[in-house]
């Protein structure tokens, strides 16, 4: 079984005691039997410009092409300048894009008179990712900029782009009950665990949408050891586990 971590980071952050280098990530992957990691630049960037972080990701994927798949981290507030850099990265090394409404303070959607549309701030970005046919990671959170519901509504208005977001109950219920989206994937980290270690949220999501769930660790913020232990204790059927641990993300990013 190929194990792919769909969300890991490389780089420096004011929240880390020391830089999390590509070598350190490879070490953690080896320790946890993870074959490939999808890597992104860390937050916060200097001036919230991710140029140096993206450069580290480019170097990482070029140094370990069989270990890493890179995403370009974009801050839409840099507008056209960012789009030029993003296009160049997608032509060169990036296999997807990450935007972060919480850390970079914007909402990806606008809601007016009951209509949901793309926030003009990200319209250009979504045109380019649709052109390249690559996914966009959009973390959801408690921030009103991008609640779980916002992430799912975003996916509903960009049918040509696959949105990857966190596994949150309100997100997958809205999707499952009403929207029936085919262009969304749910990242597992951070899992919570529960009675006897079983993560009931993951269990419910697997029952209704096993093809949309992709394993992730968020290392170094998250712990692969912990995420893998919860997966183990949740007693997932081997065939489903294979999809979650690797096949689903392979289909999404074409690894």
């Amino acid at each position, binding site marked *: 079984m190929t194990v792919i971590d769909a969300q890991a980071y490389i780089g420096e952050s004011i929240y880390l005691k020391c830089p999390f280098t590509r070598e350190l990530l490879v070490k953690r992957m080896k320790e946890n039997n993870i074959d490939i990691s999808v890597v992104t630049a860390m937050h916060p960037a200097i001036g919230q410009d991710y140029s140096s972080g993206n450069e580290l990701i480019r170097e990482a994927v070029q140094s370990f092409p069989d270990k890493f798949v890179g995403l370009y981290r974009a801050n839409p507030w840099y507008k056209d300048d960012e789009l030029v850099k993003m296009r160049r990265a997608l032509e060169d090394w990036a296999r997807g894009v990450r935007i972060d409404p919480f850390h970079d303070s914007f909402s990806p959607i606008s809601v007016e008179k009951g209509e949901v549309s793309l926030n003009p701030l990200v319209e250009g970005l979504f045109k380019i990712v649709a052109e390249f046919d690559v996914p966009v990671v959009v973390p959801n959170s408690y921030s009103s900029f991008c609640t779980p519901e916002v992430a799912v509504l975003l996916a509903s208005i960009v049918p040509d782009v696959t949105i990857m977001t966190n596994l949150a109950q309100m997100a997958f219920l809205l999707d499952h009950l009403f929207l029936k989206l085919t262009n969304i994937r749910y990242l597992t980290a951070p899992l919570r665990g529960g*009675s006897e270690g079983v993560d009931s949220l993951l269990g419910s999501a697997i029952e209704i949408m096993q093809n949309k769930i992709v394993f992730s660790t968020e290392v170094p913020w998250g*712990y692969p050891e*912990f995420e893998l232990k919860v997966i183990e204790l949740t007693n997932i059927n081997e065939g489903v586990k294979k999809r979650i641990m690797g096949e689903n993300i392979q289909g999404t990013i074409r690894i």
Partner: protein
Amino acid sequence: MIYIDAHTHFGAGMPMGIPPEDAQKCVDMMDRIGMDGMVTSPPYASIKGRAFDEANELILNAMRKWPDRFFGLARINPHFRDESVKKAENYLEAGFWGIKFHPRNEGYKINDRALVFPIMEKIEKHGGIALFHTGGEIHSHPALIGDIAKKYPTVPIMLAHFGGIYSDEAMLVASWFDNVIIDTSFCRSPHIIEKGVEIAGVSNLVYASDYPQGSIELDTLKVELADISKRDKELILGKNIKGILENVEGIRR
């Protein structure tokens, strides 16, 4: 090493048939994993007529049979006002180690002066721990704990689940008040424990799992994975709560 779980539930009516409903099974489980004891209280599912009387009795009986393994906190629904205050006093006199409050499940604010403070006065008088569910809802915001901690400085006040999404606020409150102790159950990451040691101080942290809703194995793993010293891990996994229980025992004598 001392290994005590500072927040568990025990009793009939656990959701989805979760064990244990039987004290012996629970003791067997502790023996199997090398756990010395657990601080425990009735689960939400054991509520009948909006009170927890039967479930409290079950825990009291378990404590009498295994006094070194079960450290029971009686669960009280404060909405019964004078009756709740009287019940709390009776339970503390009967040997309970404190009271468990659940502001979300019973619907009141952590620092509700009419509902919570009269019960706190009984805990202060008799000696005991006050355990509060925190996190998620505004009713259960950990910052509100400060109001109680200030008014009842001799009562150890345990803040459950590391404050949930408000872990930063939980750490701050614990750093401001020596009598505020954070339990690690369902905390989001080992990094939160590391930060807790740095900001709140290791003496204000206790390992907990919220068993059986939570997992002893996973919550212990979080402490083990945290980048903190062996000494700090030992304090969190058992020594701190043992010290708190010994202090409570001292007051009760």
